[in-house]
């Protein structure tokens, strides 16, 4: 009888082990609103702000690599983080080139084992001065005659302006001719709103400009915060408008005068 009962129990145990079995976890909370925890905010530092909501990791490393320069920055290595509550950390890195994008890597570890690695590509949303680059063929020329000289910006193909500006900032670009005088004057040639990457084809005239003056092509960027910067497109002065030369008509009059005097002397 014992054997029979034992076999029945064995059968029951086997049957029970084959049936679906459900095990619930303890209760826990989540906060999906904290999805964005890495942010760059500063205008003069690489500034990383993180919120870590705990987990099984007890160590975290944050690094940043400039995607253009390849420069690497160790931001912070944290140990003994509180795994049961959120932690907010703000860190600055000096001497980073803030014009480029950064790949942030957040690695969490438990002991020596990497628990997980998260990455995010970020760019500095700041009011930094712009230092874009230009490409394309362009030159400054004059049209008109005295006293109505006007400067014209000539392009033979598209002019591409590629800046490091964070997207979303409103900017105005002005292209000007700057006179080389004790008190330089500038003459507008072009003005437009631009984003980080612009393609332009210009053929614009300035207002009338004085002659006997050298002009350099320059551009001006103004962003939403009002910061301005100038940079010469060309390293050398690009044009000098000469004084009005003697006309051929005046030359002919003078030549006739001297010829007549010479002819009269013989007579």
């Amino acid at each position, binding site marked *: 009888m*014992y054997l029979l009962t034992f076999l029945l129990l064995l059968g029951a145990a086997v049957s029970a082990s084959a049936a679906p079995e*459900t095990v619930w*976890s303890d209760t826990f*909370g*989540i906060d999906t609103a904290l999805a964005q925890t890495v942010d760059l905010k500063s205008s003069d530092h690489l500034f990383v702000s993180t919120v870590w909501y705990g987990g099984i990791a007890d160590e975290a490393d944050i690094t940043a690599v400039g995607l253009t320069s390849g420069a690497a920055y160790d931001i912070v290595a944290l140990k003994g983080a509180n795994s049961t509550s959120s932690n907010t950390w703000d860190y600055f890195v000096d001497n980073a080139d803030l014009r480029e994008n950064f790949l942030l890597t957040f690695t969490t570890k438990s002991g020596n084992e990497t628990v997980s690695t998260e990455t995010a590509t970020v760019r500095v949303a700041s009011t930094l001065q712009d230092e874009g680059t230009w490409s394309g063929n362009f030159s400054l020329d004059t049209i008109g005659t005295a006293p109505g000289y006007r400067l014209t910006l000539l392009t033979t193909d598209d002019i591409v302006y590629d800046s490091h500006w964070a997207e979303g900032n409103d900017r105005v670009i002005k292209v000007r001719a700057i006179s080389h005088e004790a008190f330089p004057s500038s003459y507008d040639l072009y003005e437009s709103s631009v984003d980080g990457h612009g393609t332009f084809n210009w053929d614009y005239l300035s207002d009338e400009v004085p002659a006997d003056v050298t002009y350099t092509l320059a551009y001006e960027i103004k962003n939403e915060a009002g910061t301005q910067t100038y940079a010469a497109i060309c390293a050398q002065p690009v044009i000098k408008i000469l004084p009005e030369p003697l006309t051929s008509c005046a030359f002919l009059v003078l030549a006739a005068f001297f010829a007549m005097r010479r002819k009269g002397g013989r007579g």
Partner: protein
Amino acid sequence: MRNAFVFIFAAFVCLSAFSNTVESVTCHQRWPWDGKVEIDYVLNSANADPVFDVKFYAKVNGGESFLLTDLEGDGAAGIVLGAGSKKATWDAPQTYPSQQVSGLQVAVTAEEVTSSAKYIILDLSNYTFSYAASTNVSTVTTGSISKSGEIWFRRVESGTFYMGSDSTDWGYFDSNWSSKKSEPRHQVSLTKAFYISIFETTVAQFSKIDSETVSASLIPKTSTSYAYIRGSDKGATWPTYTDHRVDTNSFLGRMRAKTKNSLTIDLPTEGQFEMASRSVGDGTFLGLCCWNDGSPYVSTDKKVDANLDKLAWYKANSGGSMHEVGTKKPNLIGIYDIHGNVWEWCLDWYDNKYGLTDNELARITADPVGAPTNSGPKNSRRCGGYNNTPIDCRIPRRAQPGSGSTYSDYGIRLVLVQP
């Protein structure tokens, strides 16, 4: 009284042997910037190489439970191979975008289905796995959904068998065979059961995983390099890393992503391929001088073999082209086209002695992994194609293609392995 004590003790031992199928379910939010919740759990079994059917549920403050679907990792696509610690990830923000939720609980429901899981089926319409005790594929079938909308994998139990051949095997010393002695016979032990696809991967199956345009073609997918299948970065590191890592932008990387990284899908090792080829199904394995159904070699002219005709598309009967998979007889455990139709990539890097020393060849090798990474660089292929003679279609036949090369008669057969 004494008998009663013996009974109680025996019953206790008996019940203790069957611990909970699932236990230690713990959850925590990974970290807030992706909001995902990691679910750790443990699966138990008294069986070796168990198979589990797994589902995940959640509820809030004891309310009504609901099925979780936004999952990745162990069990995310329905089936788990092997016992032990498991980890899945729930993409909680998909269910609860930008909000705080307290009182959450997650449940893991697990049923061990080892005895019923002779086959594991991948449904290519929703990329979930299921299991079956028998196949719906008849002995020789055409146009089956198992060749286009599904991939059927056949379980192969762990065991020990003789791999390769020796001078008693026809073809071993054939004078036309320049690679002779590249298949030294030795004993191999595979310690874990695995599942191998019963068909060579068809163009239709491949297109559902890897292409924008779905094809209906049931011939084998060819012209894919080893590097395309596994990737040339992580995918080239076998066996430096034996965790079956592949590049995410490889065919297998995309396939694993679509199946939520629930099971480890890969090419078979040479040991797995040959074990499946020689398997009789009762724990024994075919020896030398026979095709994969146990029938002997009968070729007298090295061109035509009447027994191979029933099993393979090869030079004498193929008409110079590939044929729909599964239109010849399968081997003794129901795997088709092991001989002929197309050569098949294996996971291992090639070596004339399988990457083993002479001393190792003289012993039983457990779970062989082939030559070291990038040795060659060549990979292994198996058992001939539609344009090959019977000698090239033999079970131990192997070759050494370039891992970055593509060939019009190289196909893919997949396995599901325990990590």
